[in-house]
């Protein structure tokens, strides 16, 4: 019964992924047209730079802005696309720093509203994990939210991956500003909320209070790491 429920949930997630991938594809097509159209205006303006053109300076500034905003849109589209494709399959090998970069990008807006910054501390050696690409994002997002709720405005949260004996550790900790972790009770609540994805990842989640780092630590065992 549990297996049937899991399969049904996987199908629902895969459906959501397909729809999101379709939307991001359309978004990229729109951006591609805007890029080419504005590029064409730039090309035409550059054909004769000496020709008198009213408001040339303002046009240059506007076109530069369009170029930058298209670039920003493409970056958003890439993340949306990555999120969509994270739902394609229940297991994939992921580069840890890319995974952490993706979740930082996704959570950046929510953190900014709380005036908190999030960053990735790059791993010293290239590190990969073989895991469920969607559920790991779900768990990492919850870890970031947990730390955000306990961080004062102006603070900063860091994510860092590191190899461990028989697995990989992903840390989410407050690296600037105070972190108010009150009791083990709070993590019981978090564990309860994340029961399903944690079980599917076969992961463990613990409070982190070591190496001057306060936050959460997610352990992915070797079979999934």
């Amino acid at each position, binding site marked *: 019964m549990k297996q049937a429920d899991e399969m049904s949930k996987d199908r629902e997630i895969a459906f959501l992924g397909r729809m999101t991938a379709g939307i*991001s594809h359309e978004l*990229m*097509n729109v951006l*591609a*047209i805007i*890029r080419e*159209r504005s*590029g*064409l205006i730039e090309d035409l303006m550059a054909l004769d730079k000496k020709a008198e053109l009213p408001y040339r300076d303002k046009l240059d500034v506007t076109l530069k802005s369009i170029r930058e905003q298209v670039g920003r849109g493409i970056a958003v589209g890439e993340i949306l*696309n990555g999120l969509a494709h994270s739902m394609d399959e229940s297991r994939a090998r992921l580069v840890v720093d890319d995974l952490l970069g993706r979740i930082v990008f996704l959570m950046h807006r929510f953190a900014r509203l709380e005036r908190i910054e999030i960053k990735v501390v790059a791993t010293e050696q290239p590190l990969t994990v073989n895991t469920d690409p969607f559920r790991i994002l779900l768990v990492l997002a919850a870890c970031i939210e947990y730390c955000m709720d306990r961080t004062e405005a102006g603070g900063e949260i860091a994510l860092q991956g590191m190899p461990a004996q028989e697995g990989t550790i992903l840390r989410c900790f407050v690296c600037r500003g105070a972190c108010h972790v009150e009791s083990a009770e709070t993590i019981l609540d978090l564990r309860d909320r994340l029961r399903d994805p944690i079980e599917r990842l076969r992961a463990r989640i613990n409070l982190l209070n070591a190496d001057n780092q306060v936050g959460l630590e997610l352990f992915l065992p070797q079979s999934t790491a």
Partner: protein
Amino acid sequence: MTQLKVLLVDDEDEFVTTLAERLQIRGIETIVAFDGERALQIVETEDPPVVVLDVMMPGLGGLDALKHIKRDHPRTQVILLTGHGSTSDGIRGMRMGAFDYIMKPVQIEELIGKMNEAFEASKQETP
């Protein structure tokens, strides 16, 4: 053949016609097609050395069109346009004989660089 002539194929007609205009400004002879079937007809009649082909098109898709082009016109070099989440299509296409793939939205200078490389490669191929 001394001058680069390129066939651009994409069902997003506004994208492909604007891109074609930009290439023409740079002195590159360009033909456009909005679907795979029309692209194959143009390859037959115009024999362009380089084809830039969108992977995701209704009807005859980019990979199917690629198969036909490489079977009937092995000298023609094909550059695939893929989505950001579809690099596997690009890799598959290269295994099927595509010269290279590039992700949409494209940077025009990067595309021109690849088109020039593909053009050189088309000259190396024996007829």
